[in-house]
């Protein structure tokens, strides 16, 4: 059993330098980063293109070797094959065999995990059901829409019931309902004690589900901490309340202006487009 606070990913002074043909340093993609990802948390890796996110993920997956520093995944070297049996990875692009059907894809990857017999069949069936591809299980992946390909990508990442799940842009290409479902699924997995590392540009999604994030820039960690810590600033507050009368509102604003020296900003809070969309589509679906 792992301790609650046990570090699932531990990077110390992790550096990756890519060399040119002659062995000379070409690009310092990751530059001495420190990263701690704890068991059961959803950790977001943010940063612009070329900031070193993918290189970091590839080092965690054991596809690239660190130039210097230390990296431990689930207490072992990321290159150890035994670690990979406890990991699941969903890449950004669909790196799947397009000539295989959804069913064949999952069976193939299940074989790679050494799964056989009824345990394999049951797991594959359950995952196809869970990602909503029951109707398309015999269709070739090459014929899938981007959203469907993402779903099958997610299913293969969960085949081995992993302790650590790495997701690269998990909601990209998904419609809002599917996106919500994926986010709910990830939150449920985290509640089960799974550790999730997400790489994404969808900051709203990251804000929704991540417990902690790290922002990478030019191969270095610029900021890290819990989402709440990063979003909260001690001298600014957001107050949400039922709209009072105009007189009361003006009196409160005057009082606050006298206290702080600046006039507070008043906005009308409404529903988000996402909530309207989900509500509308859900109503229509339940009616039909």
């Amino acid at each position: 059993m792992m301790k609650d606070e046990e570090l699932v990913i531990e990077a110390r002074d992790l550096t990756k330098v890519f060399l040119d043909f002659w062995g000379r340093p070409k690009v310092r993609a990751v530059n001495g980063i420190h990263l701690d990802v704890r068991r059961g948390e959803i950790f977001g890796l943010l940063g612009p293109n070329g900031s070193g996110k993918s290189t970091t993920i590839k080092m965690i997956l054991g596809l690239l070797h660190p130039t210097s520093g230390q990296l431990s995944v689930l207490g072992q070297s990321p290159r150890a094959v035994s670690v990979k049996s406890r990991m699941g990875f969903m890449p950004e692009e669909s790196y799947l065999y397009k000539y295989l059907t959804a069913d064949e894809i999952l069976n193939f990857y299940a074989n790679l995990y050494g799964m056989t017999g009824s345990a394999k069949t049951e797991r594959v069936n359950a995952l196809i059901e869970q990602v909503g591809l029951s109707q398309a299980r015999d269709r070739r992946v090459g014929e899938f829409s981007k959203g469907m390909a993402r779903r099958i990508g997610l299913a293969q990442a969960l085949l081995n019931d992993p302790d650590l799940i790495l997701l690269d842009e998990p909601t990209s290409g998904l419609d809002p309902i599917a996106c919500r479902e994926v986010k709910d699924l990830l939150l449920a997995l985290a509640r089960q004690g799974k550790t999730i590392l997400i790489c994404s540009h969808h900051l709203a999604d990251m804000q929704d589900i991540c417990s902690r994030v790290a922002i990478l820039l030019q191969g270095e960690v610029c900021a890290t901490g819990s989402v709440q810590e990063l979003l909260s600033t001690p001298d600014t507050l957001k107050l949400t309340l039922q709209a009072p009368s105009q007189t009361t509102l003006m009196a409160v604003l005057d009082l606050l202006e006298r206290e702080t020296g600046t006039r507070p900003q008043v906005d009308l809070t409404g529903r988000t487009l996402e909530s309207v969309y989900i509500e509308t589509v859900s109503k229509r679906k339940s009616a039909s």
Partner: protein
Amino acid sequence: MSHYFGKSLTRISALAGLTVRDAARSRLLVSLGGILIIGLIGLPLLISGDNTLTRRLQVILNYTLSFAVTMLSIVTLWTACGGVSSEIQDRRLYLVLTKPVHRYELWLGKWLGIVALNALLLTLTGFIIGIMIWHTLFTSPESETGKRQACEQFLLARQSRLPESPISEKQAQASAAALVKSGRAPAGIDAAQVATELMKELKNARFVIAPTGTVHFTTLITTPLSGINDGLLNYKIESSRPERSPIPALWEIQAAGKKAIHLSVTNYPGLPNRLLIPGAVMKNAPSLTLSYHRLDSSSSATLFMAQNGQEPELLIPSGSWAMNLGRGLLMILCRLAFLSALGLTAGCLLSTPVAVFAAFFIMVLLAMSGYVESVATSGAFYIPHEGHELSKTWLDKVILSQFKGLNRLTQPLLRLDPVPLLEEGRRISWLLTTQAVAWLVGLYTAVTALIGMILFNRRELG
């Protein structure tokens, strides 16, 4: 431990299955099968020659097999090179390698998949050749005797028997020692060299045929023959004169204790000859004495039977043609297994186009192994420098040593090529087949695989 091997086997077989499925779904298998069928059936129709039964059988055996082997070699290299490198390029391999898969398992799985594909296509090739031969025989307007003779000539595995040496090695060594001791041998030559020269001279002298002269030689048949199938005598006559006029001659063939038979022939100098020897003559005979009587009294040219690998050779029946083809195809599969390993190893290190180029370069080098051998043994590539005597420069020495090294590497590949043996209807023994498995799979493939796995294991996938 068995649990670990069980899981490993599941992974390897999944990867092998994926490779076969990839070929099948990407239509490679269907296209290649189609090309093989069209080529194997179309080629004999295009090159039917004089349209006789023997000629058609000869074309089927000589061209179709070479065509199939060339096609399969090219496709094997192409598939093997792309097997890993194209999956690295389109990043499908990234996902596979994030699963608990050892890189050697991936290499082995891919290799087994390609070998399984080759086995499938070789079986198809053998099947098509068999059907074509059966169809050619069945639809031929030739008489039953003609068909039987054609089958005797082509559809039988035969073992080679060479004439007995006129002098044993021991006798030659003893004579050479006596010559050296008596001081009659040239100075500076040792007894071993004298013995070699002596044997060579005696062999040459034995095959010289003066006008109206005769040559005799004896061939041992170690295994008693049933006498059902005929034997074949391959021989070639050379002339001391440049003109190529036909030579009438008579072969006298006699087994110990049996009546001799006589076969009239007409030979042309420089051309290979093939004589069918009735099986009844050879039945249970321990040896055959063959005599060639030259009948052209008007010609003054001296004739001699060709030497250096083209001596008269008796081919005696030894097993069925179908089994021989099966063993030959197994040897071809071993060669293709090595090519798969070569392509996969190249693909593990290089991008697809570069890997294909490198692997094809090696394949061409291997195909030229006969040339390499002749250069390595004779040093024939030397070009005398103007105004200088024929002498080796340092560059010549370096190149020659490379050719020699290459020759050592390619010798087993040349020796273990079953295509010429199948084309000539020679028996491919189980020993030779086992040697092919041991050398090509057990050594060449294993070493290439080991190199490939080690380097692939170190490779980063960025």
